[in-house]
C-alpha cells in the first residue's frame, strides 16, 4: 500500500509526508537511488570510467565493488553505499565522468530524505567533516566500514534516513541509542525499543550507568567528503592510545606455535548436550583459558606485573585473564577473574556475560581492571597470524588464530587432515626469557592436544 503510493509519483529527494499507521518491524518501500560520484579529493573534477563490476539486475551489498575509475594516474575503486539491486548504469567504459555526476541507479530498501544528494561511495574513507557544517540541513553521509578502528565521539549516529525520520518524529536523540545493527548502526527496532514501543531486550538496558566505560558514544561517526570533523579522543579509544604508547616501550619478543585441535574438537562435541542443558555455548575459548591458567600455575612469572620504575615484580596469585572483545565502541579488554579457581563452565558463563555486555557497551570498570594475562582471540575475526602487543603492566600476551584444516603427517608418514590453530605469544624481554615462554607454550599445547592430560593436572 505504501509502496504503491511512493512508486507512482516519486521525485527523488522529495520530502514525503508519511503517517505511520502502525509499527511494523519489517522492511518497506523500495526506492530508486541515484548513486553519485563523490569527491575523490586531490582537486579532481573528472575521471574516466574504466570498468564496471556490476550490471543491471545484479544484487549489490554495501561495500561491494561497483566500478573502477581512473583519474590521471590514480586507479580508484568505488564501492557501494547501499544494499540493493542495480537498475541502470549511466556511463560506458571509456567515458569521462564528472565528480558529482550520477554513476548508476540502485533500487534500495532505504528511503532517501530530501537533498541527500551527495553520498560518498568511498567506504572506509577517513576524510572528516568540518564542525561548522554539521549543523547544516543538507544531508551528506559517508559510511565507515568496520576496520577494527572505530572512533567514538560526539557525532552523528549511523542510521538509515528512515530510522532518522522515526527518531525525529518521536523526538529522540539518535546518539543516545545503542545500535544493534551492523557496525553499531541504529535500527528501527532500536529506536522503538528506546521509546518503549516494543519490549526491552533485558531490564538492565534502559538507563546507562555513569561508569567511565559508558562515556564512549555508542555510535561510530559520519564523515562527509571534503569536511574536517574534530572528534575528541574519548572512552575506549583514549585508553587505547595511552596504553599502546606505553606498550611499545616494552621490548617484545615473539614466539609462535601451532596446536592441533582435533582432540579438543571431539571433546567439545561430546559436551554439547550438557551445554544445551545449562544454556551455555561452549566455544574453544573456555578450554583455552582454563588451560592457560593451569600453565600459568607452572610458570607464574608470566602472570606477574612490573612497576614502571622496575623496582618490583609482583607475582599475582589470581589469574585474571583478559580477552579482547570487539564492541561497537572499539576494542575492549575485560578480564575473567580468578580463572585458577573456576571450572570451564564458570569461565564460559563469564565469557558469555562479558560478550553480551560488550555488545551493549555495558562492561563494568571492575571487569576492565586487574587483568594479569591476556589472550586475544583475533581468529574470531579472521587471519592466522598476529603480532600481539602487551598491555602494561602485564608481561605477556597470546594471540589465537582461526581454526584451519591443514595437511599434516602422522607417525606413519601418511598425510591426514589436521585442525590447526596458531598461537602467537609475545613477552616482555626484560623479565621473560625465551625458554620460559617456549616451555609455557609447550605445556599449553600438551593440555589442549591431550585433554586427558589436562584433566589429570586439574586441582
Amino acid at each position, binding site marked *: 500500500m505504501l509502496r504503491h503510493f511512493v512508486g507512482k509519483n516519486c521525485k527523488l529527494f522529495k520530502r514525503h509526508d508519511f503517517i505511520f499507521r502502525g509499527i511494523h518491524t519489517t522492511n518497506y518501500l523500495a526506492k530508486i537511488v541515484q548513486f553519485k560520484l563523490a569527491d575523490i*579529493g586531490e582537486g579532481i573534477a573528472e575521471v574516466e570510467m574504466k570498468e564496471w563490476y556490476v550490471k543491471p539486475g545484479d544484487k549489490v551489498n554495501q561495500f561491494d565493488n561497483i566500478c573502477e575509475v*581512473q583519474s590521471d594516474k590514480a586507479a580508484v575503486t568505488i564501492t557501494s553505499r547501499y544494499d540493493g539491486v542495480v537498475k541502470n548504469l549511466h556511463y560506458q567504459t571509456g567515458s569521462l565522468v564528472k565528480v558529482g555526476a550520477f554513476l548508476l541507479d540502485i533500487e534500495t530498501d532505504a528511503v532517501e530524505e530530501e537533498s541527500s544528494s551527495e553520498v560518498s561511495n568511498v567506504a572506509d574513507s577517513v*576524510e572528516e567533516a568540518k564542525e561548522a557544517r554539521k549543523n547544516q540541513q543538507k544531508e551528506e553521509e559517508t559510511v565507515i566500514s568496520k576496520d577494527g578502528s572505530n572512533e567514538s565521539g560526539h557525532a552523528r549516529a549511523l542510521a538509515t534516513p528512515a530510522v532518522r525520520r522515526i527518531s525525529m518524529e518521536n523526538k529522540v536523540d539518535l546518539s543516545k541509542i545503542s545500535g544493534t545493527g551492523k557496525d553499531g548502526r541504529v535500527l528501527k527496532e532500536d529506536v522503538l525499543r528506546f521509546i518503549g514501543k516494543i519490549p526491552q531486550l533485558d531490564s538492565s538496558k534502559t538507563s546507562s550507568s555513569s561508569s567511565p566505560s559508558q562515556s564512549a558514544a555508542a555510535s561510530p561517526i559520519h564523515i562527509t567528503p571534503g569536511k574536517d570533523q574534530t572528534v575528541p579522543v574519548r572512552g575506549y579509544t583514549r585508553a587505547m592510545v595511552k596504553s599502546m604508547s606505553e606498550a611499545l616501550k616494552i621490548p617484545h619478543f615473539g614466539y609462535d606455535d601451532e596446536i592441533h585441535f582435533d582432540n579438543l574438537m571431539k571433546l567439545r562435541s561430546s559436551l554439547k548436550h550438557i551445554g544445551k542443558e545449562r544454556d551455555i555455548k561452549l566455544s574453544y575459548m573456555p578450554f583455552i583459558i582454563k588451560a592457560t591458567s593451569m600453565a600459568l600455575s607452572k610458570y607464574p612469572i608470566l602472570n606477574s606485573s612490573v612497576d614502571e620504575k622496575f623496582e618490583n615484580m609482583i607475582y599475582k596469585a589470581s589469574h585474571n585473564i583478559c580477552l579482547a572483545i570487539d564492541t561497537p565502541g572499539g576494542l575492549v579488554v575485560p578480564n575473567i577473574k580468578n580463572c585458577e579457581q573456576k571450572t570451564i563452565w564458570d569461565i564460559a558463563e563469564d565469557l558469555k556475560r562479558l560478550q553480551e555486555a560488550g555488545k551493549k557497551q555495558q562492561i563494568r570498570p571492575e571487569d576492565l581492571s586487574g587483568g594479569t594475562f591476556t589472550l586475544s582471540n583475533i581468529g574470531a575475526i579472521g587471519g592466522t597470524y598476529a603480532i600481539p602487543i602487551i598491555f602494561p603492566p602485564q608481561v605477556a600476551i597470546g594471540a589465537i588464530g582461526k581454526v584451519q584444516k591443514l595437511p599434516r603427517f602422522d607417525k606413519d608418514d601418511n598425510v591426514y587432515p589436521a585442525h590447526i590453530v596458531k598461537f602467537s605469544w609475545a613477552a616482555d624481554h626484560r623479565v621473560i626469557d625465551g625458554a620460559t615462554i617456549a616451555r609455557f607454550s609447550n605445556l599449553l599445547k600438551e593440555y589442549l592436544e591431550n585433554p586427558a592430560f589436562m584433566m589429570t593436572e586439574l586441582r
Partner: protein
Amino acid sequence: MKINEIFSAVYLFKNNSPAVVIGRHQNPFLEADIQYVDENGIDFARRHSGGGTVYHGYGNLNVSLLTTQTNHCRPRNLQWIAGLLNENLGINLIATKRDDIIFADERKVSGTAARIARGRAYHHLTLLIDEDLDILRRTLNSPFKNRIKTNATQSIPAKHVGQISQEIQGITVNEVKELLINSFQKQFERCNIINVNSISEAVFPDINKTQKELQSWEWRFAKTPQFILDDDIQVENGIIKVSSNPEYQLGSQFYPISNDILNQQQMNKTEHLLS
C-alpha cells in the same frame, strides 16, 4: 599490504630483475614490444595502480608509499624526494605537474602511479639511477603503435629519458635507497626498518593467492580493454573475436605474430632509428 592501525604509513623500497610493468587499464601490445620482452627474459606484469608503462631493472629503485586516503598526496611525496636528492647530491631534479621527476632539460627519471581504494592509498614511483636505457627504449617501442584503436589508457612517452648516474658518476641504487630511508626515518616518531628477504605465506598470509592472480594470463593479458588492430582484428578479454587475418585465428589468445608483414616493416623502421 595491511597498514597496522598504530602506524600511519608503510614505505617500501625495492629493486628487481628487468621487467616491463603496465598500468591497470593498459594494453600491453600497444605499450611494449611483447615479443622482444619474451625473447629476452624480461618479465611482464600488469599492476593494480593506474598510470603508464615503465621498464625497470636492477638500475632502478621502486618506491612505494602506503597511507590512508587522506594522507595520500603525490605532489608532496615527489617534491620531498626531489628536494632530498637535490640537497644531497647537488643535482637539479624537478617534480612536475604530471607527477614526473625530470632534470631541467626534460630528461625524465621517474614516473608515478597510484591506487586508492577503501580509505587507503598508495603512491609508487620508479627512480632511474643506473639502468640500461637502450634496452628500456627498445622494450617500450611497440610494433603496434598507431595500429591499435582502444579505450585503454595510453602512456605518454617522455621526450627524453634520463637517470641519476648521468649526473653523478658511479652512483648506485643502494646509495640512493639509504639516502631516502634515512630521511624518511626522521619524519616519524617511531619507525621500524625491516628487510624483507623472502615473501612467504607464513609471514604474509594470502600472498600466494595474490601472486598467482598477478601471474595469471587472465590478469596480465585478458584484462586488456577490448581493442581493434589494423581495423581488422578485434580482441576482447584477450581472445580474438573478429579477424580476417589467418595469422590471428578466431577464438585463440591474441599474441603478436613475428612474421606479420606490417609488424616487420615497423621493426625495420625502429632498428634504423636506433642505430
